[in-house]
């Protein structure tokens, strides 16, 4: 079973992020593998353990390859970095185009593609579905359960919906984005960590993909950031100094008329 996992390095949740200008963020140099992508890697590894085959982690990033190294540390067989100066400023569609183009190369047959439900930095959740659309394969988002019938090339997945669970099935090849609850990503063993530290990451540029610089990058972006705004500061705490039960009445009034949350 040939499995690909799309991964991204995102700012660590502990990293300090500030709005530098209208179009630029200042992010502390602390990065981490997107947690939902770890779930996706784990899903791939579990299927390989059951059916055999190969798990390849794949990213589009000109600088950071730690998400790929984490994939190898967890047990992935191969890691590919799509990198090219022309990719700078790409939006989610351009990233998806680069990934789909790589996966469409005739020497890259695949059975399954996994991705995280969304990246924890932009929270867009678009790359996975866009890759599936470009490849013309079925996809299901935000799965929390997965059963693969390899001989029949069929998959049954579960996802949570309002008030219950939805069970869907589709044929392979297919793409799924993974949600918390699908599995518990393994903690890498030190043996694999050392292997990942030394691993040679294979690099692929736009020329190898047969893409032009105009098709990706900032100029081709369909989505443009207009302005970054810092979150509003927490308003000061308002103390209600009346005695019971007047204080409760005042609190309810304030919650309804001022905070407008009830």
């Amino acid at each position, binding site marked *: 079973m040939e499995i690909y996992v799309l991964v991204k390095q995102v700012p660590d949740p502990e990293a300090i992020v500030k709005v530098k200008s209208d179009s630029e963020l200042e992010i502390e140099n602390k990065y*981490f593998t997107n947690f939902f992508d770890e779930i996706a890697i784990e899903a791939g590894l579990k299927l390989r353990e059951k059916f055999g085959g190969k798990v390849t982690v794949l990213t589009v990033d000109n600088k950071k390859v*730690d998400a790929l*190294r*984490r994939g190898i*540390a967890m047990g992935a067989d191969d890691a590919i970095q799509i990198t090219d100066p022309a990719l700078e400023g790409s939006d989610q569609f351009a990233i998806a185009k680069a990934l789909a183009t790589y996966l469409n190369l005739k020497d890259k047959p695949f059975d399954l593609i996994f991705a995280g439900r969304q990246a924890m930095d932009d929270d867009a959740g678009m790359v996975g579905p866009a890759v599936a659309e470009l490849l013309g394969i079925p996809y299901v988002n935000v799965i929390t359960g997965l059963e693969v019938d390899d001989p029949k090339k069929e998959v049954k997945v579960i996802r949570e919906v309002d008030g219950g669970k939805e069970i869907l099935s589709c044929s392979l090849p297919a793409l799924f984005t993974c949600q918390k609850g699908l599995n518990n990503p393994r*903690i*890498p*063993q*030190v*043996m694999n*960590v*050392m292997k*990942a*530290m*030394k691993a040679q990451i294979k690099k692929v540029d736009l020329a190898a993909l047969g893409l032009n610089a105009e098709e990706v990058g900032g100029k081709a972006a369909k989505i443009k950031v207009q302005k970054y705004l810092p979150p509003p500061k927490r308003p000061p*705490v308002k103390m209600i100094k009346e005695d019971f039960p007047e204080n409760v009445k005042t609190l309810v009034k304030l919650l309804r008329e001022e905070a407008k949350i009830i």
Partner: protein
Amino acid sequence: MALDFNFTEEQEFFRQMVRDAVNRLIMPKVKELDEKEEFPWDLWKEFAALGYLGLRHDEKYGGMGTDTITQMIFYEELARGSCGFSMSATMQILMGTYFIARFGNENIKQKILVPAIKGEKIGTICFTEDQSGSDLAGTRTLATKVDGGWKINGRKQWITNGPIADFATVMATIDPKLGLKGLNFYLVERKTENRDGFVSGQRLHKLGSRCSVTGELVMDNAFIPDENFLGEEIGKGVQYAGEILNEVRVMTGMNALSIAKEAMEDARQYANNRIAFGNPISRYQLIREKFAKFWAWYEASRTYLYKCAWMIQNNIPCIHDCMLAKYHSTEMCMYAVEEVMRIYGGNAFCSEYPPQRFWRDAKFLLYGGGTHEVLCDYLGRIYCKE
């Protein structure tokens, strides 16, 4: 370019992996580990399965054979979690297995080192006695040569992992009158029906570092075979101890560094959120000064400790540097945990808040690798060229 203070991309990745493992396995249990005061067997098994216990040992025996800087990165990250767990793990990785890996024959390595790396056998090292610790010349545990081996008699105190240890590297003297020149290391296993060895004495209940169990080991005419003598020749025990102590001191310094950092990070959040007189207390100058002083001393400590790791790795003599770095880092840690107790105000005095745990854990680091009084006396003597 002669000076380069950067970690490599690979080292940074390794740090991130260890940090992540500590965050997932240890951090959620830190309070419970301290309160229960028991050795956490389940956590030990989970941790051992990741392979880190073999960090500094030969790949032939299931280890990773990493360099000193990588090991120190590991110690620094591990100590962010539970100080007690860190003490037990570092005892196993470094002191408890060092002389077995260095001097043990193939039989001993297969019998002791291989299961120790898997976490299946627990190891320790024994220096301290009722009248000796930093003063090794006062060692009274006696090793007597007999046919085919040695008889060991004595009582060792303050032994980390002692109550649960399967094997111990024991410092003993062939004659107390010889002082430092009579000291050697011997491998002693726990006594069973079929084998002579040590038995556990009293278990100690400690102020901090509480999930690392500590107690006495007693050897009463315990016979050990010749192959359990750990060394190349008799009388070199002190020299060997000096050689391991460089690593032990830098490792202890790394523990201090991490406790201090965790305590101050915690205090930073508290100070930014705790409102007094209408402002977060981090806006008051006397509070800010505590963070500024810590920051300066922390950065100096960290740089010096990694310099020592680099010197050990490159076989540059650094016994005094390792003493100085351990001393500086641990005193910096004492300052940090004390000030965090003040930043938290009265809240620091109850177990619902973490400062008291940082404060109690930190005190444990004052004694390992030589008390600061002994270290300072020695270093002062060296500095004055007496």
